[in-house]
């Protein structure tokens, strides 16, 4: 019995690297695509994934953020890579007075084709940005519709945060832009 316990312990020790690496590699790719991930920073992606209800009915999509309890505002935004021509307009709280980063930020690479960029804001201005993947949502391809203008940020209080399709026609195609059905805030860097 002692020998068996010893062997199990050895297998457990040897399993630490593959188990950790499996977890590490499975972390949301929106955070790792830039190649750097600070494991010491808080990870809110699970909270975001658990607190947001995604429902689809045909081509209509509904994102319900009202289940998020630890945040005061939710913003729909656009993320850009650091080398973007208008990098100062990329989604980054450092660009905006009164805001600061919280947690492991999503990578500033253009929006995934199956995701919307979401920024959560605490009352103290702490901001966490993340690309929220919507399974099967290939219609969000940024070459189609979900290519919000640089610097765009539509924020609403969490208790009102339910995004729906705002249908637009682009070169004959009917596209869904996920927006909150309220008057958008004026972008800080509006042209």
């Amino acid at each position, binding site marked *: 019995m002692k020998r068996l316990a010893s062997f199990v312990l050895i297998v457990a020790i040897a399993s630490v690297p593959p188990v950790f*690496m499996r977890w*590490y590699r499975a972390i949301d790719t929106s955070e790792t695509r830039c190649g750097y991930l600070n494991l010491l920073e808080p990870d809110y992606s699970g909270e975001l994934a658990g607190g947001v209800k995604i429902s689809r009915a045909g081509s209509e999509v509904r994102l319900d953020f009202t289940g998020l309890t630890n945040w005061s505002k939710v913003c729909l935004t656009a993320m850009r890579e650091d080398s973007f021509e208008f990098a100062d307009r990329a989604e980054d709280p450092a660009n905006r007075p009164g805001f600061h980063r919280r947690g492991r930020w999503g990578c500033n690479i253009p929006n995934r084709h199956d995701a919307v960029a979401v920024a959560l804001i605490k009352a103290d201005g702490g901001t966490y940005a993340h690309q929220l993947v919507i399974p099967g949502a290939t219609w969000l391809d940024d070459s189609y519709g979900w290519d919000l203008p640089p610097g765009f940020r539509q924020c609403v209080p969490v208790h009102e945060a339910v995004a729906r399709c705002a249908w637009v026609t682009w070169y004959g195609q009917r596209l869904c832009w996920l927006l909150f059905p309220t008057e958008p805030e004026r972008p800080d860097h509006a042209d």
Partner: protein
Amino acid sequence: MPIERRALLLVRMAAIAAFLALSAGLLAAYSTHASTFSEMILSPLFTMLEYIDWVPLWSVALYALLLLWGVRNRRAALLFCLSLPAAVAFPVMFIGLFAANGRNVLGLNLLMTLIYPATWLLPYVAMFQAIQLGIRKREIGWTGYVCAFLIAGVYLWSAVVNDLLNSIP
């Protein structure tokens, strides 16, 4: 001859055979394909590096084999088996890199050696434990488990560093 001594003899003979085969393979590869030597040597090793996190589990299988052969110094057997794969692979990788690129990569090699402590740490552990294998009967003990955990940590570190280096655009 007692079974443990026979096992140790087998292990040492296998190690010598592996070393000779590896040396012969390297020599043959370099003499016949000098221009592509680096790629030939490094490609499989870099591939192995991608799966380095799984190596400790294979080492456990090797450890079980040693126990079945009758090795009685369990602590040395465990640490030897855990450190052996990296102790062989990492130095060969850097020697291959150096042989192929010479002084051009000396700085890179030194940097990589620092980044991957498995390169200098695990060969030392493997050699020391190989000597310890035949000295006396010994259970693993808590220090053995701690050392095994630290070696697993070295593999984990190598895997994380490798992932980070691969993800640099």
